[in-house]
């Protein structure tokens, strides 16, 4: 048991605080490490190894059912993929860009460089992308 927890119980035993106040303090104490972890302050600074994508969505086929997608991709695979992508011949790259534009994704594959990926990974280490919608929740983070 931690010192803070003992102190709260001691205060409760001595009658300095009520049971409700003690409960609130204990709850706050429990949520503190989680808050630190989610804000990035609790991280050790170790290099992340995996990119995680977690999707929770309502299942249209099953009422009240949830579909959960949990993908863990090694960051090394992303790096290798970008290196492989850099080898795509210019003509093929132009075709890929044109097709992506046609499908509403105006993205230039030639801009996908290993340096940019390292920068992206570095930033993903510090933040979590959360998309919260009424029926769908998407979370992207590194671990």
């Amino acid at each position: 048991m931690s010192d803070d927890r003992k102190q709260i119980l001691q205060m409760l035993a001595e009658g300095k605080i009520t049971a409700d106040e003690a409960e609130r303090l204990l709850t706050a104490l429990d949520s503190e490490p989680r808050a630190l972890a989610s804000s990035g302050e609790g991280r050790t600074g170790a290099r992340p190894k995996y990119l995680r994508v977690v999707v929770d969505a309502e299942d249209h086929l099953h009422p009240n059912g949830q579909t959960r997608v949990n993908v863990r991709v090694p960051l090394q695979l992303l790096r290798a993929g970008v290196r492989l992508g850099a080898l795509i011949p210019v003509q093929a790259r132009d075709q890929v860009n044109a097709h992506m534009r046609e499908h509403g994704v105006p993205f230039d594959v030639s801009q996908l460089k290993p340096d940019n990926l390292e920068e992206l990974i570095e930033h993903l280490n510090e933040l979590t992308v959360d998309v919260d919608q009424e029926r769908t929740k998407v979370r992207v983070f590194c671990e």
Partner: protein
Amino acid sequence: MIPVLAAIHVRHARGVVRLWAPLFLLWIVLIPIMLVLAFPVALVCLVVGVNPIRAGAAIGGVLFALNGTRVEVESPGASVLIRII
């Protein structure tokens, strides 16, 4: 390390299928084929203006980086889990 095993678990209404695919057997079969194909592929790379050594290194990099990949899809009716070890 190159992946040696793929674990595939499928759960559906009629039961559960658990499959462990030994990828090292696949590599044993593929390596001689890759060696035979290496020269023609290198020629094709040179024709399209791609450095064959860099291409080989990049493909090897992708294969070696597959380790640890995990894809899990769960729905009320079924679930699929693929792990590369």
